[in-house]
Structures are given as structure tokens and as C-alpha cells.
């Protein structure tokens, strides 16, 4: 035996002993504090830092969050916001799941999450969330919780475990230079247009969520109404409408971009439309087209429309993990997000260009006048036009079945 191998054996043994010894050490077991009084929350939050994990793919949102949320809650409540950019919040749920199984019930690194839909369902059903906390927020009175589309997040009851901060509705974006001023606003007219203009239409490949929502619209179209998909998943109902959807999608496939042999990613769709290679894009953000024109991402010939049969709408929420180190600070931030003052900034097309998530009728007269005075931007539809066409999202199992069906019946055919 030479000295090197002895050394190796020694180090290996030491590491193994170290790991096994420390693995038995208990992690934090005390759960985060529960508050019943808002003044207690404010007092506990003062001077703390909130670690807010959110999608970090937009330099504009990153900057806006720092300026309009971070700076304000620091000045008013003494709460520092540390925005943590992530590519996909599902990665953070995996981390929370690991911490949950490791028994880390307090002292976690995540205080606030930007979340909705399937991720919320996963987090809620795995008991990864702190709460219910919504009733504690003074500004929750501005939220219309009687609206089923607010009280349910993709069919999952919110039950006070997440608080909204922005509204989203699906719109189609189109290039007037290619399509003209009257876009095809029915699925029949769209199919005709696609056949007449081969290679100019496509949609993101599922499981991309924009591609997924496009396919959901076709189910609603096939059924003529959203009602069948709002209850629990039913295979018989699915089988009744699915063939019509697959026929539609397979029918247009040869006329899609690259003859439907491949489907782009959502981010690539932006480039394809900007470059005129395709004539349509789709977005969950009705203000995206106007903003993209202002940011130089889109040429100024892009406009938006909604289908006559309506488009799906949902909300962006924030939730607090079960083991958050600073739930008080997170509550303060969640409350600021639905403050009318913040929501008016959010709804200002010149600033955020989002849709207001609180109920405009609950605003003061002056605030309502401010909202009405906004210049929407060249490509954005008015809020009342959108609201009149808003459709509720189906439950998660429907989405999963539709996505699986698409892969089997469209992608692989």
C-alpha cells in the first residue's frame, strides 16, 4: 500500500462518517407563526426581508417589481423585497417537496411564490403552502371572491391559500401587414385563412402552456360552451368532443409553418411573428403586443383580437410556502399587490400594461376615473371587450387529458 491510496481511503471513510453522523441531526421543527391581527403582521414585518421567487424571464417585469413593489413596501412598511429570478417555478416546488420530506418545517429560504394553475394545485395538495391567509389581508376586500374565476384557480379552490396580483386573458396577436384589418375571429374562418396562406400559422408545441391553452379553446369551440369542462374530469365527455378537435388540428397541420412537421417554442413564436415569417402569435397577456411594440420586439403592425366564442382567462397569484422564514413580510407584500394604488400602476399601459385583478367597481370615484383615462396603446383591446369574452379555465385533469391527447392524436400522427 502506498501513501496515496491510504490517504484516499482515510478521506472516504471520514466523509462517510461525517455524512451519516450529521444526517441524524434534527432540522428545524417549529412551524412559522400564525397571525390573527394585521397590526401584529405589520410589527413583525418591519425591518425584515422577503425572498420572493418568481419567473425572471422579462427584464421589464424584473425592473418593474423592484421599482414599483420593492421600493414602495420598503418605504412604507420597512420590508425589503429580494426578488429571486427562476426559469420555472415548478423547480422551486421540487425544492419545497424535498424540504418537506426532510422535515424542514421552518426557516425555509422561500417566503413568497408567484404561482398559479397546476403548480398551485400541486403545492396545495402536497401541503406545501402557508395559510389560509387571504382573510387577514385588509386589501382583500377589493377582490371579488364571489367570482368563481377568482375563487378557483384552474378549477382548484383557492381556499385562502393564495392571493391574486394580476389578471390574464388569452388574446390572438396578428400582423395587419399580412392579415389585413379584419382577422379571422372564428375557428372556421381561421382554418380557411390557414389553408389559403400555407406556412403562415403555427402554435407552440404542448406542453408549452400557450400551445396548451390554444388547444383548450378548440375543446370549448367543439362543445359550443365551456360548461362540460368545468366539473370533474369525465372520459365520456372528453371522448365526445376530442375527435372534432383532433380533426381540426390534423386538418390544418399540412398548412402550418414548416408544413406542421415541427412546432416552435413560445419564445420563438415572438421572433417568427416579429420577422413576418408567421402572421399570428398568441399570448396570455392582452397588453403584450402594445408593450412589445414599445420595446422594439414587435413592429408596429401587430394588433390583437379575441375569438367570437371567447378566450380563456385566469389570475396570477402569490402564495407563501409552509416553511417560510418570514410570513409576516410576505403577507405585507401580498397585501400591497392588491392595493388599489398598486393595481392602478399595474393596469397603466404606460407602466406595466397588465389587467387589474381587483374589482374596478370597488374603487373610489377618483380611482375609477384614473383607470378610465388610461391610453391602452395601439394593439390592446379595451378591458370591457375582453371581459365580455372571458371564459373560465377547466380543471387540471382536463388540461392533462387534452395535452396527452394532442401528443397522441396530432403530434404522432
Amino acid at each position, binding site marked *: 500500500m502506498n501513501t*496515496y491510496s491510504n490517504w484516499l481511503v482515510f478521506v472516504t471513510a471520514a466523509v462517510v462518517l461525517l455524512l451519516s453522523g*450529521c*444526517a*441524524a441531526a434534527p432540522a428545524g421543527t417549529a412551524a412559522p407563526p400564525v397571525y390573527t391581527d394585521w397590526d401584529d403582521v405589520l410589527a413583525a414585518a418591519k425591518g425584515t426581508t422577503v425572498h420572493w421567487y418568481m419567473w*425572471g424571464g422579462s427584464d421589464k417585469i424584473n425592473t418593474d417589481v423592484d421599482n414599483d413593489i420593492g421600493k414602495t413596501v420598503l418605504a412604507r412598511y420597512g420590508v425589503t423585497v429580494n426578488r*429571486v429570478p427562476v426559469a420555472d417555478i415548478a423547480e422551486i416546488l421540487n425544492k419545497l417537496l*424535498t424540504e418537506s420530506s*426532510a422535515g424542514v418545517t421552518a426557516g425555509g*429560504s422561500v417566503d413568497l411564490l408567484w404561482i398559479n394553475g397546476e403548480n398551485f394545485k400541486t403545492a396545495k395538495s402536497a401541503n406545501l403552502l402557508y395559510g389560509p391567509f387571504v382573510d387577514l389581508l385588509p386589501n382583500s376586500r377589493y377582490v371579488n371572491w364571489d367570482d368563481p374565476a377568482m375563487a378557483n384557480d384552474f378549477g382548484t379552490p383557492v381556499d385562502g391559500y393564495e392571493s391574486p396580483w394580476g389578471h390574464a386573458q388569452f388574446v390572438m396577436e396578428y400582423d395587419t401587414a399580412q392579415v389585413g384589418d379584419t382577422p379571422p375571429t372564428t375557428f372556421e374562418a381561421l382554418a380557411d385563412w390557414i389553408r389559403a396562406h400555407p406556412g403562415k400559422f403555427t402554435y407552440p408545441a404542448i406542453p408549452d402552456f400557450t400551445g396548451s391553452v390554444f388547444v383548450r379553446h378548440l375543446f370549448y369551440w367543439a362543445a359550443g360552451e365551456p360548461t362540460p369542462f368545468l366539473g370533474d374530469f369525465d372520459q365520456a365527455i372528453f371522448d365526445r368532443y376530442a375527435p372534432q378537435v383532433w380533426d381540426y388540428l390534423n386538418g390544418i397541420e399540412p398548412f402550418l409553418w414548416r408544413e406542421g412537421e415541427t412546432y416552435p417554442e413560445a419564445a420563438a413564436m415572438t421572433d417568427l411573428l416579429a420577422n413576418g415569417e408567421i402572421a399570428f402569435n398568441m399570448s396570455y397577456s392582452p397588453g403584450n403586443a402594445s408593450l412589445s411594440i414599445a420595446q422594439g420586439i414587435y413592429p408596429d403592425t401587430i394588433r390583437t383580437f379575441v375569438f367570437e366564442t371567447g378566450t380563456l382567462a385566469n389570475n396570477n397569484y402569490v402564495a407563501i410556502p409552509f416553511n417560510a422564514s418570514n410570513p409576516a413580510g410576505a403577507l405585507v407584500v401580498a397585501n400591497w399587490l392588491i392595493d388599489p394604488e398598486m393595481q392602478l400602476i399595474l393596469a397603466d399601459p404606460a407602466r406595466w400594461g397588465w389587467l387589474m385583478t381587483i374589482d374596478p367597481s370597488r374603487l373610489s370615484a377618483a380611482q375609477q376615473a384614473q383607470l378610465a383615462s388610461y391610453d391602452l396603446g395601439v394593439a390592446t383591446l379595451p378591458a370591457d371587450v375582453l371581459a365580455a369574452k372571458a371564459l373560465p379555465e377547466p380543471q387540471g385533469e382536463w388540461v392533462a387529458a387534452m395535452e396527452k391527447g394532442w401528443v397522441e392524436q396530432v403530434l404522432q400522427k
Partner: protein
Amino acid sequence: MSSFWRGSLVGGIGVVVGLPLLVQVIWSFAFRWYFPDLLPSEWGLHAWRYVFSDSSRVGEALLTSLGIGLAVSLLSIGIGMPAARALALHDFPGKGLVEWLLLVPIVVPGVVATMGIHLVFIHLRVADTSLGVVLVHLIPAVPYMILVMVSVFANYDTALEETARTLGANAVRVFWFVTLPAILPGLLVATLFTFLISWSQYVTTLLIGGGRVITLSMLLFPLIGGSNNATAAAISLVFVAPALLALGFTARSLAKGPSVLGGLGRP
């Protein structure tokens, strides 16, 4: 003739590396750039303004990435250099097994193991810390250090060390004046490899650093999936800068002498 081939090689590398970078540079200064325009129709500084703003967090991330990368490189030397020497110059029972174990992290994707590592790190109280991130980066980094150094030591003659020892030099002086100069070019290449492996880690940093440790790749990955090409291009350029410096450095070392070239091919 040899200088002609070397010139062509350097030129070829320059084109392969330089052209995509040139596109990135143009993108980072573009405001409107649509097909089929060869150049942007409007230029702007907004991407670089974002890079230098507090919101981008590029400054702190750059320092964090550098610190973690340096720590990973130094620890990789400490672990990998003695191991490589032992593997190259000595035979011992179970050597095949040790070699295999050292190479496993290259074969098995790090993501697979990271979940379990996260669990262990939580108990060790190093999850969500820079130390934890350094440790998890060592897993993919150390095998590369060992791979390069094994081939360096395979060409290494210990007779010089023995000569120095017989002339009265102690172990430290032997290492400093005999061993180190002989292996230095290879060691530098290996160190740069490990630094760049640490520099480009994303999933392991996210899971073990938990978002508390923000490296440059943590900022870059979300932006690449976003829709603003100009910003993504500007941050990519900041990200790729050390890789370019490393490439230039390596190329110079390669050009200097045969020791490293010999070291790269295991006899």
C-alpha cells in the same frame, strides 16, 4: 508549413467562436431587428442599461460566480491533483474501481443525484449557502481535473524528484521547484476546465443554492427563455467573457510548448 497550419487552426477557431459572438454583440445593441434586415433598423442601449441597473443583479452575481468558481478550482486541485498522481504513477488494489467511481459524475447527469444531495445538505445545514454550492459543483468538476492531470502525470518522470531529494531538497521545495514547473501547463488547463464547469452550472446551483446564491447563470437562464433577445444577448456576453479569456489563455499555453499537448493524449 507548420506555422501555416497553426495560423489556419487559430483562424478557424476565431471564426467558429467569433461569428456567433458578433451576432450576440449586435443583438445586445439592437432595438428593432427583424428578418430579412442584415442589421438592426434601430439601435439602442436599453439592454446594456438593464445589465448595469440594480434590477439585473449582474454585478453581485458576477462576484458570486467568480468566488464560487475560484473556490471550486482550488478545491479541485487539492482533491484531484494527488488523486491523479496516485492513479497515474501507482498500482494499488481496487484501482479500477476508484477510477470508475471518479468518472461516474461525468456519466450520470448531475440533476439525478442533486435531489438526494439536497436532502443530505439540508441535514448538514449547507443547503442555501455558498459553501453548499461549492461542494455540489465539485462533483462534476473534480473528474475533469483528474482526467487531465492523470494524463499529465502519465508523461511525468519521478526521477527528477528523486534526484532533487538526494541533493537535499525537502518535500515542499521538490514540489515547488521540480514538480510544479513540470505539470504547470497541464494544471492550468485543468483548473480552467473546472472553473468553467462551475461557472456554467444552473440546476445544481438553483437546487442547492435555493435562490439565495445568485450566480450569473441563474440570471441568464430565465432570460434566455424570455422574449427580449437584446437583454439575453447582453447578459450572455457578460457570461461568456471568462470562457473567452480561458480559451485565449489555453490557446497560448498550447502554443507555447509540447508539455501540455503531450499531456492531453494519454499514452
